[in-house]
């Protein structure tokens, strides 16, 4: 299954896809478009990816976290395209026998996806639009 989608994410379906009868804990992280960023109002975000590479890089993150937490089942979907405030951009589900490793795995998956996966966002608001992170990358 693809880690990327152009449709709204069905978090409940994602959760069911990994929950085993032996699992007692499910931790779900949802990233949501919020109405501000670094002091500026945000109305919408366009998410774009280098798709084949993003699929591979999310896969690398998932496999690496699975290796650290062998008892945790992991599912990820990242949405691309035009999202407005309140829309969910990413859902990560980690389910496991016990909760401690589900929390820890979920946290690691989102932290690492944010660091390494070639996905970008252009924020649009009343003051115009901007590719996040580009201005400050000047040197």
């Amino acid at each position, binding site marked *: 299954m693809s880690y990327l989608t152009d449709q709204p994410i069905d978090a409940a379906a994602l959760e069911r896809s990994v929950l085993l009868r032996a699992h007692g804990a499910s931790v779900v992280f949802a*990233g949501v478009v919020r109405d501000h960023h670094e002091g500026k109002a945000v109305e919408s975000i366009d*998410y*774009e*990816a*280098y798709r*084949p*590479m*993003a699929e*591979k890089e999310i896969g690398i993150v998932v496999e690496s976290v699975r290796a650290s937490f062998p008892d945790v089942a992991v599912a990820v979907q*990242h949405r691309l395209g035009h999202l407005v405030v309140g829309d969910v*951009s*990413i859902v990560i589900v980690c389910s496991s026998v016990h909760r401690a490793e589900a929390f820890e795995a979920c946290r690691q998956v*989102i932290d690492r*996806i*944010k*660091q*390494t*996966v*070639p*996905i*970008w*966002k*252009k924020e649009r608001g009343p003051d115009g639009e901007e*590719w*996040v*992170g*580009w201005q*400050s*990358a*000047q*040197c």
Partner: protein
Amino acid sequence: MKVRLLFFAVLRDLTGKAEALLDLPEGTRAVDVWNQLRGEYQSLAGYRHPPLAAVNEQYALPEQRLHDGDDLAFIPPVAGG
């Protein structure tokens, strides 16, 4: 040698292209392509250090030498999640 250069996000906006087919001398490195872009596009002049590079869908060092048939992409600061 031929290298396909892919543009994403801010770089696609700035160049107005999704990709370009480059004809490069043997031994060209990713950073050399970046410096060529900086010469062509005024808006990139302030970016002396290249963003991360990817060759054939894998992260690569700026000094990596390119080969015929490679896909090269510069990866502006990522912001997924």
